[in-house]
C-alpha cells in the first residue's frame, strides 16, 4: 500500500469558480463507451486486470461467518486455476484487491482471510451519526480492517457547508489511524455534478486516500457522468498538489463489458499510472463471476454453464 494522503489546508478557492456542464458531461460519457473497446487477448488480459481492482463486497443484513468465509476464499482464488494456467497467468498472484464487509463482520473476514493464507485488506462501511461513525471506524480498525469506506453527510454538501464537511472527513482521517480512508460521496444524492466536483475536492483536501462514488445501496449508483467529474477532480488535485488519489466506483457494475469500460475511462481521463489497485478499485459483488465466465469463453471457446464455475 502506498503512503497516506496527508491532505492539504482547506482552500475554498479551488472549488469556488467551478461549474460543471451537465449536458456536455453526459455527451462525453456516451462517447467514451463507444470509442474504446478491446478484443481477444487484450480483452482477456484487461479482464484479469479488472479482477485485481475488485473490492469483493457483501453488504447484506443476513451476512454470517459462513458466507463471509466463502467470499474471502473467492477473493483469494477469483479465477479457476486451470483457466489461469491456459493463459499462462497462474503465477501472477491474481487476487481481488480487497474484501468489503460491514464493521460487525470484520472479525470473521480477518479470520477467514488468515485461514486462506493471504493478507488481503478488509474494509467496512457506515452511515449513521458522526460520533457513532467515528466509533465504528475505530472498532473496525481495532478488529483488523486496513481500509475504511465511510460515507459523508450529504446535507453538508447540499447546504454548502464545505468547512464542516472538511472537518468531518478530517476526523475520519484521524480515526482511521494507519488504515486507508475511502470517502464515499453518495453522488446520487448530491443533486448536481458541480456538487460532485466540489465534494470530491474537499474530500481529497481533507486527506482521503480514495474517493468512492456510492455505497452501492442508493438508487443511483456509479454512473459514467459522475465518474468523469470525479476523475477530473482527481487530476486537478494531482496537478495542484502532486498527490495521486484513488478512485472507486461502486454499485451497478455487473458485467465484464462494464468493467472494461471503467478501465478505459480511467485510462483516458487519468492515464496508465492510475490503473493499479493502489489507485483504482471497483466495488462489486456479481461482477467477478461474469468476468470468470468471459475468461472461460476466451480460453475454451464455449459459454460456461452455471455449475462450471465455483460460486462466491
Amino acid at each position, binding site marked *: 500500500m502506498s503512503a497516506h494522503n496527508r491532505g492539504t489546508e482547506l482552500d475554498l478557492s479551488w472549488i469556488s469558480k467551478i*461549474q*460543471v*456542464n*451537465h*449536458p*456536455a*458531461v*453526459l*455527451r*462525453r460519457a456516451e*462517447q467514451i463507451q*463507444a*470509442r*474504446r*473497446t*478491446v*478484443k*481477444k*487477448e*487484450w480483452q*482477456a*488480459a*484487461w479482464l*484479469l*486486470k479488472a479482477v485485481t481492482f475488485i473490492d469483493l463486497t457483501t453488504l447484506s443484513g443476513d451476512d454470517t461467518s459462513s458466507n463471509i468465509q466463502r467470499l474471502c476464499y473467492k477473493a483469494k482464488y477469483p479465477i479457476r486455476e*486451470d483457466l489461469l494456467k*491456459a*493463459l*499462462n*497467468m497462474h503465477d*501472477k498472484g491474481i487476487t481481488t484487491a480487497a474484501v468489503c464487509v460491514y464493521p460487525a463482520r470484520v472479525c470473521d473476514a480477518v479470520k477467514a482471510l488468515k485461514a486462506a493464507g493471504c493478507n488481503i485488506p478488509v474494509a467496512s462501511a457506515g452511515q449513521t451519526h458522526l460520533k457513532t461513525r467515528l466509533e465504528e471506524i475505530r472498532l473496525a480498525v481495532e478488529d483488523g480492517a486496513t481500509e475504511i469506506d465511510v460515507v459523508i453527510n450529504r446535507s453538508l454538501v447540499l447546504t454548502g457547508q464545505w468547512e464542516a464537511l472538511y472537518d468531518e472527513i478530517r476526523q475520519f482521517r484521524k480515526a482511521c489511524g494507519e488504515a486507508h480512508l475511502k470517502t464515499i460521496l453518495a453522488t446520487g444524492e448530491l443533486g*448536481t*455534478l*458541480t456538487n460532485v466536483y466540489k465534494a470530491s475536492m474537499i474530500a481529497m483536501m481533507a486527506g482521503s486516500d480514495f474517493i468512492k462514488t456510492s455505497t452501492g445501496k442508493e438508487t443511483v449508483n456509479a454512473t459514467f457522468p459522475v465518474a468523469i467529474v470525479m476523475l*477530473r477532480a482527481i*487530476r486537478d488535485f494531482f*496537478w495542484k498538489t502532486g498527490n495521486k488519489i484513488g478512485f472507486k466506483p461502486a454499485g451497478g457494475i455487473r458485467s465484464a463489458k462494464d468493467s472494461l469500460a471503467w*478501465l478505459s475511462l480511467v*485510462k*483516458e481521463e487519468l*492515464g*496508465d499510472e492510475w*490503473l493499479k489497485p493502489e489507485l483504482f478499485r471497483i466495488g462489486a459483488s456479481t461482477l467477478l463471476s461474469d468476468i470468470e465466465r468471459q475468461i472461460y469463453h*476466451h*480460453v*475454451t*471457446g*464455449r459459454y460456461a454453464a452455471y455449475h462450471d464455475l465455483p460460486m462466491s
Partner: protein
Amino acid sequence: MAATRAGPRAREIFTSLEYGPVPESHACALAWLDTQDRCLGHYVNGKWLKPEHRNSVPCQDPITGENLASCLQAQAEDVAAAVEAARMAFKGWSAHPGVVRAQHLTRLAEVIQKHQRLLWTLESLVTGRAVREVRDGDVQLAQQLLHYHAIQASTQEEALAGWEPMGVIGLILPPTFSFLEMMWRICPALAVGCTVVALVPPASPAPLLLAQLAGELGPFPGILNVLSGPASLVPILASQPGIRKVAFCGAPEEGRALRRSLAGECAELGLALGTESLLLLTDTADVDSAVEGVVDAAWSDRGPGGLRLLIQESVWDEAMRRLQERMGRLRSGRGLDGAVDMGARGAAACDLVQRFVREAQSQGAQAGDVPSERPFYPPTLVSNLPPASPCAQVEVPWPVVVASPFRTAKEALLVANGTPRGGSASVWSERLGQALELGYGLQVGTVWINAHGLRDPSVPTGGCKESGCSWHGGPDGLYEYLRPSGTPARLSCLSKNLNYDTFGLAVPSTLPAGPEIGPSPAPPYGLFVGGRFQAPGARSSRPIRDSSGNLHGYVAEGGAKDIRGAVEAAHQAFPGWAGQSPGARAALLWALAAALERRKSTLASRLERQGAELKAAEAEVELSARRLRAWGARVQAQGHTLQVAGLRGPVLRLREPLGVLAVVCPDEWPLLAFVSLLAPALAYGNTVVMVPSAACPLLALEVCQDMATVFPAGLANVVTGDRDHLTRCLALHQDVQAMWYFGSAQGSQFVEWASAGNLKPVWASRGCPRAWDQEAEGAGPELGLRVARTKALWLPMGD
C-alpha cells in the same frame, strides 16, 4: 475442457494495459465491389452505366494503398445522359402527390437500415474515416434525414402551397466528403419533387451504392443519378440546359469561380463553402467539457475541417494544459478499427496540413514537430500565431486547431467576426446572459452553446458571408429546391459579349435639357444619404422626362464616391436599427405609411405626369402605404423554436438581418416597386442603399422627404444616377451584404458575376418584369425568405 485458444501475449498486455486492434470486417464491402467486377461505373436511370473508352482511376485503401477497384471517369456525354434521365424522371416524380414520395423515401430509409453494415464498412474503408463515426453517426443520421423529409413531403401540398419544385438539381461534392453531405442535399430535393444528378469525385463508391439502393426500389429509377468524374466536369454539368439549380459544396475559391462562370446561365447556384469552425472559450466555461468540444470539432473525424479556438486570457494556461493532456490520449489508426479517434484522409489532406503548419511556424507560431509519417496526421495545436500573419487569415485545415487569446467578450466577437468565413461556431460559457449575447452576436449560420457539432434533420444548417448562403435541413433546406408557383421558368440570359471590365464603367455625360416646366412644386433635389439631401460628388445632374417627353425635373448624378458614402451611412445606422425590436421597427414603417397618405395628392400628380390614370395613381399610393403596414405586422411573427430528438432544450431558428442591402429598383411602378422592396428590407432590420426607378426617380425622392423626418439617419439611402454605373459600384462593393437587382438581362448577368467578390447573395430579375401590384409577386413569401438570413442557435438544457 476444450483446446485452449489463448495466445502468449496476455502476460505482456496484463502489465502494459495497452489497447489492441479492434478490426471491423470489411468482407461485405469487398463482396459488393466483386459484384461490380471491381470496376465501378456510374449509376444512371436505375442502371449501372459503364461506357467504353473511358479513363479509369484506382480506388485505393488510403492506409494500405491496396487497389480496391477501378472507377470509370465520366465524360460530357455521360453527363448529358444523366441529366436527360433526371429530366424524364422529374415529370413523373414531381407529378405524384407528396404522400407517394414520402412512401418512397421511407422505403429507402428501410433499405439503408437493412444494409447498413455494407454502407458503413464501404465508406470507412475507402475514406479512411473512423468507422465508429460512420456507423453511429452518419448512417443513423442518413436514416433520420429520410424519415424527416418523408414527413415534409407528405404535408407538402398544405405546408408549402404556392411553391413548386425547381426541376433537375445538379449536386457537386468536394474531393473529401462523407456520403452524408450528399444525403443532406438529396433528401430535401427529392422530398419536394426534384430529381438529382450528383457529380462525385472519382473513387467514392458509397454514393454509388446509395444510388443503387434507391434505384433498385422500383418505380422511380431516374430520380437519383450519380456520376463519378473529375473537377473539370463541374462547369459542364452546371451549364447543362436541363439543370435548374446547382448545389455546390467545396472549397471557397472553386465556388467563386463557379459563381463567375454561371453568371447569366440558366441554373441557379447554391454554395456551401469551406470547412472551418470556431470555438469560443470564456472564463466561466467548464473548461474540461470545452476541451471535449475541441475534440468533437477537429479531432474526432466528425467535423470536416480545422478549428479556430479563441480562449479568454484568464483561462489560457489552464485550457492549454488540458488540451495538450487530452491530445496525448487521442489515437490515430486505420478507420476500420473500432477504437481509434482519427483515421487517415489521404495524401492530399496531409500535404495541405503539412504546408499550413510549416508556414505557420515560419510566421512565428508554435506547433510542435511536423510529422513525416504517412498516411496519418496527428492532432495538431497551433498557438502564438501573430494575428496579422498570412496564416491567421486563411482557412484552418483538418486536423489543426489554431488557438489565440482574447480579453473580453466584446473583443472575442470582434475577432470571431473578423474573418470572411461564417460557417459554424460554439460558445462555451456557464453564464446564460453572456452565452446568449455571444451567440446572437456571432455572424455565422450555426451556434452551439456549450456543445459542438450537434446535427439534426429538423435544424437548418448553413452559413453566411463567404461560407455561401445555401442551407440544408429544416424548412430552409426545402426552400432551396422550391420556387414560387406560376413564375416563369428561369431562362438563360447569357450574353457572351458582355464585357465585365467595362460594363457601367463610364457615365454618359448629361447636358442641360431646357427649363423645367409644369404645374407641380419643384421636385426635391439631391442624393438622400445619411438622412438628408446632399449634392452629388460629380456636381452634375441628369434630366428626367415625363410621359409626353417634356422635362419633369433634374436629379443628381450619383457616382462611385456617393455609393461609398451611402454604404458607410447605412453601416453606421445598421447596429442601432437591427437592435430595435420588431415592434419598434413596425411603428416607424407605419409612421411612414401615414406620411405617404398625407402626401397622396403630390405623389398621385407626379405619377399622373408619368402617364398613369388618376385613379390608378391613387391606388398605387394607397397600395404602397398598405405594403408598409403589412410588412411591419408580418415581421413580428418571425423565427421559431425547434425541438430536436435527443437534445433536452430548444433550438432557436432566428431570422437575422443581412446587413446593408443594395436594391436596384425596376423602371416600372416607380412608387410601388420602390416601397415594396424598401418595406421588407427595413422591417427585417436591414439598412438599404437604393437606386430608384431610372425612368422616374422623383417619386422615390418624394418618399425620401418623409423618410428624412420619420426615420433615423442612414436607414434608407437613395442614390440617383446612371443605373448601370451605380449597379457596378454596388455589385463590386465588398461591404454590401446582399443585392437585389431588377433590370436588364445584361445588368443581371453583371451583378451575378460581380457578386463572386464577397459571395453576397443576389436576386436578379434577368429582365423579367414582375407584377408588383399582385400580392404573390409584390409582397409574397419569396421576399420574406430573401430579406433575412437564418441562424440556428442550439441551447442544450441542464444544470
